[in-house]
């Protein structure tokens, strides 16, 4: 046999099966991060901080040292790790409720300090694990279990645009909003993730990749319908864009 491996599980993922719902894009996002860690040869020196939310078990799926932060506090925990071991690579993986509601202060101040860590931010406009409640990024009019009549801007305000908020902070070295809605988007997302980790490895500052994602289960749509809904509703609200790039070209 002279077989050639065309596709395999990245070394930075464990053999543990994902616990995510059918059609959920966490698995794709995990794989992209793992591929980047493999390619940059960072696996052995990486420490990850999983959040509270659907990806609370992410530390089991990645084959790297890891912990779970209290809800919203992932970047503070990551700061503690990075400041103790400045030569290690540290990343957080957080959802919209975690990062942009309960953890807003930590998010802004970690970015503002230029903490040399990377954040993978999954924005699917809803709380997944707790069962589909309104998120800070929920769209106006969006029905969730805690906005059953649709998010009303008068009383619940507007979706928070995390990248647009962070782009004015000098400590940020790489900031991009990507999506996983088409194969082309997935390829672009991986490039962004690679740049984010490169920013950290080069000590340039804080890096964050916002990933526009879906939640078929709590949106009440099929996986395919979810992709379509995200394209039509999410992307106009959260346009894909490189906000900050202090890295330059990366191979």
């Amino acid at each position: 046999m002279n077989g050639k491996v065309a596709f395999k599980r990245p070394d930075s993922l464990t053999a543990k099966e994902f616990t995510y719902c059918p059609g959920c894009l966490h698995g794709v996002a995990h794989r992209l991060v793992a591929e980047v860690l493999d390619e940059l040869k960072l696996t052995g020196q990486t420490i990850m901080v999983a959040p509270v939310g659907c990806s609370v078990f992410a530390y089991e799926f990645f084959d790297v040292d890891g912990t779970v932060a209290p809800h919203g506090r992932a970047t503070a925990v990551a700061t503690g790790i990075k400041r103790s071991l400045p030569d290690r690579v540290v990343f957080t993986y957080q959802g919209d409720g975690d990062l942009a509601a309960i953890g807003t202060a930590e998010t802004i101040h970690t970015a503002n300090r230029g903490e040399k860590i990377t954040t993978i931010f999954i924005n699917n406009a809803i709380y997944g694990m707790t069962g589909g409640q309104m998120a800070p990024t929920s769209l106006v009019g969006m029905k969730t279990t805690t906005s059953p009549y649709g998010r009303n801007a008068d009383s619940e305000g507007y979706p928070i645009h995390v990248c647009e908020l962070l782009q004015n902070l000098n400590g940020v070295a790489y900031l991009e909003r990507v999506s996983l809605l088409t194969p082309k988007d997935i390829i672009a997302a991986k490039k962004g993730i690679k740049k984010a980790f490169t920013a950290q490895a080069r000590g340039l500052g804080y890096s964050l990749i916002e990933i526009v994602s879906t939640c078929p289960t709590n949106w009440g749509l099929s996986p395919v319908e979810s992709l379509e809904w995200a394209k039509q509703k999410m992307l106009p609200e959260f346009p894909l864009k490189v906000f900050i790039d202090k890295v330059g070209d990366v191979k």
Partner: protein
Amino acid sequence: MADKTLLKGTEAMAEAALRAGCQVYFGYPITPQSELIEYMAKRMPEIGRTFLQAESEVAAVNMIYGAACTGTRVMTSTSSPGFSLMMEGVSYIAGAVLPAVFINVVRGGPGLGDIQPAQSDYFQGTKGGGHGDYRLIVLSPATIQEAVNMMFDAFDLADRYLNPVLIIADGLLGQMMEPVELPDFLMPDRMPNHDSWALRGKGTRKKHSVTSFDLDPLKLEEMNLANFEKYRKIQQKEVRYEEYLMDDAEVAFVAYGTMGRILKTTIRMAREAGIKAGMIRPITLWPFPEKPIQEAAKKVKMVMSVEMSMGQMVEDVRLAVSGKVPTPFYGRTGGVVPTPTEVFEALKREWEAIV
């Protein structure tokens, strides 16, 4: 013998912590312990250690959690409202079985309270404060020298038992100055390495995970039982207290920290007036020195608790005494420090009621 230096309590504790091997400090300013964080900000960069002012106590305690995950000696200091904010993180640190040291320079409460010395955070420190089944090792110094020595003990206990250790001080101890002898810097080889579990990047070994959760109730129960086995050992081995003039005592005072110090004057006044008073001063508030108090209750006519609170430790004293003798309480609250004379007057009233 090393020379003595005149130092303020907060600064002495800070310098002692660095000599005890504290590598990383995260904190947020709050009165009456801001001199401690300021000392760290100035001193730590001088000796190659890491200082960071967090955006809140909530962030600070989670930075502590992160640093503790790497097995690095880490601490913070705060005062009552700040420690309340840290409760979530403290629960996680205890649940994840991590070493860390906290100093709470207690001030008057509840709420915003005031900035005067108090002992009204005893319940919070010794009975939980955060959610879930856990214990902190809680130490309380009565002098600045004791606080200095206690910093070494605190880091050692945290590392030995992989448990958060809390030092409860108060504004009086933090703000006064005393001559102290500072121990030498601890050599790195005296510090534990934590290689078997710390998060430092897996390199060529198997990956490490540090968490405080398990969705399977039977497994979470196992985690809690393992923790409580550890707590049982701590109760057996680590009780610390001072006995003062207890040999012939007819009245045993129980008081800790600043109050324990003030009572030594009251005890002298009592003895001059013919009341043979002594004191058991808990140095570990948890584990609580239950046995010496039980033993004392067999010999004395009264066990009297005195606190700068409405009466919190007194509940543990009453549990230990179990109704064998009267257990009166005297306290002042809101940041008022009782004088030796007013405690003496309170003692006389209680004493006359039983003799």
